[in-house]
């Protein structure tokens, strides 16, 4: 029952952090859907690794699934990173720039 409780704590945690009013049914359903969608879609993205190596894909999928489910109320943690603050946006954009450059530079040279 621990996992089940964890799952339904998502909405409670979300409410504590972000809102002050009462939490309605539709909001809870939205947050739960978001949680499930995030887990499922990230795992689906990881499955794309099978085009590189099937064994690696299996290991990675299991690993990512375990990590995601163990940290279950993902949405509060996730939403803190997606704020409207300029500093966070700048940080992520520069990180992305460096990842792209590294990826294309090395990837283009070594294949």
């Amino acid at each position, binding site marked *: 029952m621990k996992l089940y409780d964890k799952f339904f704590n998502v909405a409670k945690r979300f409410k504590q952090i972000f809102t002050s009013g009462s939490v309605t049914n539709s909001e809870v359903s939205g947050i739960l859907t978001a949680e499930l969608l995030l887990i499922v879609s990230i795992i689906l993205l990881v499955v794309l690794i099978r085009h590189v190596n099937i064994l690696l894909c299996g290991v990675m999928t299991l690993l990512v699934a375990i990590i995601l489910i163990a940290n279950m109320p993902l949405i509060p943690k996730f939403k803190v990173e997606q704020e*409207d603050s300029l500093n966070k946006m700048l940080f992520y954009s520069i990180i992305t720039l460096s990842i792209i450059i590294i990826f294309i530079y090395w990837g283009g040279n070594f294949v």
Partner: protein
Amino acid sequence: MAYTQLAVLLTSGLLVIIGLFAAIFIDNIIKKVIGISFIEEGVNLFIIAIGYKTGGVVPILIPGMDKSWFATNAAYPLPFGLVLSSIVIGASSLAVMFAIVMVLYKKYGTLKTSVMLADHSHGSVNDE
């Protein structure tokens, strides 16, 4: 003076890096904008350096010049045209930025980015 082009390229790279550093790590919004102007200037300098030719001449054809000599010795003029429009665009976006900064200063009374441009959405919900 064969190292001129290389040195200019290095300078432009340094300017871009200084500007990026300022834009990311300095909290004061006006200095952030100054840093952004350095990025733009660095990129302009880089593009001008592409067109440079060691020992070349200015790409303006003066009457009486030998055309084939001119074609081999003149600098490449296309980047110069690009930089002209790029300078003007950069200056205009800088002007817009300062205008908005002045408006926002009236509202917040500070130039700190971490106050001015932080996420205000939760605060407004709690205040109501």
